[in-house]
């Protein structure tokens, strides 16, 4: 492996890890998306370096493919971000954690919930509960009623505003 290839691999790895740290720390969905793009750029540089090493075009072809995928991703991700933003009027990724079973207290402290709109879409049933016995429009989860939710939102929202 030539010295240049080695250095370029290091450079690509650095770029990749910077993008990764950005993805892990950022809470704005757009910036998270940009971090992803940076990771892809790092990978792309890796491919180019290997293509130079082997003296063929495969790396560059792969790079072009990555560019294509990045473009597709940009289109879809931005469409998704727009639709998500219209739901909750925020770009905070912490607001989208419905896969979590219960809205636990630490999380609730961490993100001040800003929700002007009523949550009118169906919620997921908490795992292990029979939907017919626990109708979801009434309960967000065990012991967490819609009234609680409203109260919670009103206090949190007012303190933020």
């Amino acid at each position, binding site marked *: *492996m030539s*010295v240049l290839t*080695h*250095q*370029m691999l*290091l*450079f690509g*790895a*650095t*770029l990749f*890890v*910077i993008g*990764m*740290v*950005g993805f*892990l*720390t*950022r*809470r*704005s969905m*757009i*910036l998270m998306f*940009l971090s992803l793009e*940076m990771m892809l*750029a790092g990978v*792309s*540089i890796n491919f*180019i370096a290997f*293509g*130079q090493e*082997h*003296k063929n*075009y495969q790396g*560059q*072809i792969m*790079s*072009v493919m990555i560019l*294509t995928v*990045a*473009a*597709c*991703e*940009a*289109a*879809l991700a*931005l*469409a*998704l971000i*727009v*639709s998500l*933003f*219209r*739901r909750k009027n*925020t*770009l*905070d990724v*912490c607001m989208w954690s419905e896969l979590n079973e219960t809205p636990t207290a630490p999380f609730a402290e*961490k*993100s001040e919930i800003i929700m002007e709109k009523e949550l009118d879409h169906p919620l997921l049933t908490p795992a292990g509960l029979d939907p017919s016995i626990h109708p979801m429009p009434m309960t967000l989860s065990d012991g967490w009623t819609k009234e609680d939710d409203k109260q919670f939102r009103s206090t949190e929202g007012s303190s*933020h505003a």
Partner: protein
Amino acid sequence: MNPIFFAQTGLSKLGVADWHLMAFICIAFAAIGYFLLQYGVLRSKTWALIGGVFMAAAVVMAGASQKLDFEKVVLFAFCGLSVCGGTAFLVVRQPVHAALGFATAILSGAGVLFMLSAHFVAAATIIVYAGATIIIFLFVLMFSQLTSLETYELKLNQPMLATIAGGILLSVLVYSLHAIETGEVDIAQSSISRPWSQITRPGAPDSTADLAQKSNVPRSTAGLGRSMFTEYLFTVELAGTLLLAATIGAIAVAQRTLEVEA
């Protein structure tokens, strides 16, 4: 145990891959973590820039261990600029500034590609990312209230843990490069690096080895084009189809939300 000591000793001895470099990178990430932790409390872009320059210097020094010519200097300058932009992207608070940092990193990366004689890819990167970045700028301006920053833009999500994770991953990557280079690990013997054809059919000719022997492939955009539209035509068509599907998907997703809104 200050980083300067490592830098100085590293400069004299720095091989292509050395454990000093790993230590250096770890310390650089510790610095980044420090700034990230202070994020939003200390209004210090300067400190953030210092962290970026620190990392960029690490990358440049890694490359500076050999004989320098003009091309190399430009190449490493692009590398450093790119890393610097990436660090700025990490630590600044304003989304617009972060996007600027991102653009710096990507455009410098395109410069690196250019210096690596991948002219077509470099140009394509500039076009795609420049276009994408402009669009993203528009989105950022559209969504974020420029009067005040939102909570989610001020507060980060577990910066310490993220820095540690990134540092560990980068250390692992660098160590693997180091280990392969010094011969500690023979990657050719590792079953995971063998081609699939050799694993399924032992004794079959290694296609990558064959390709490597076909050296002196002309480094030109023309060659790449020929290769793309002869050897990899199917791949290119597939990429085109993917783009079409993504276009339709994006329109569908956006339109459905509009209906919900209505």
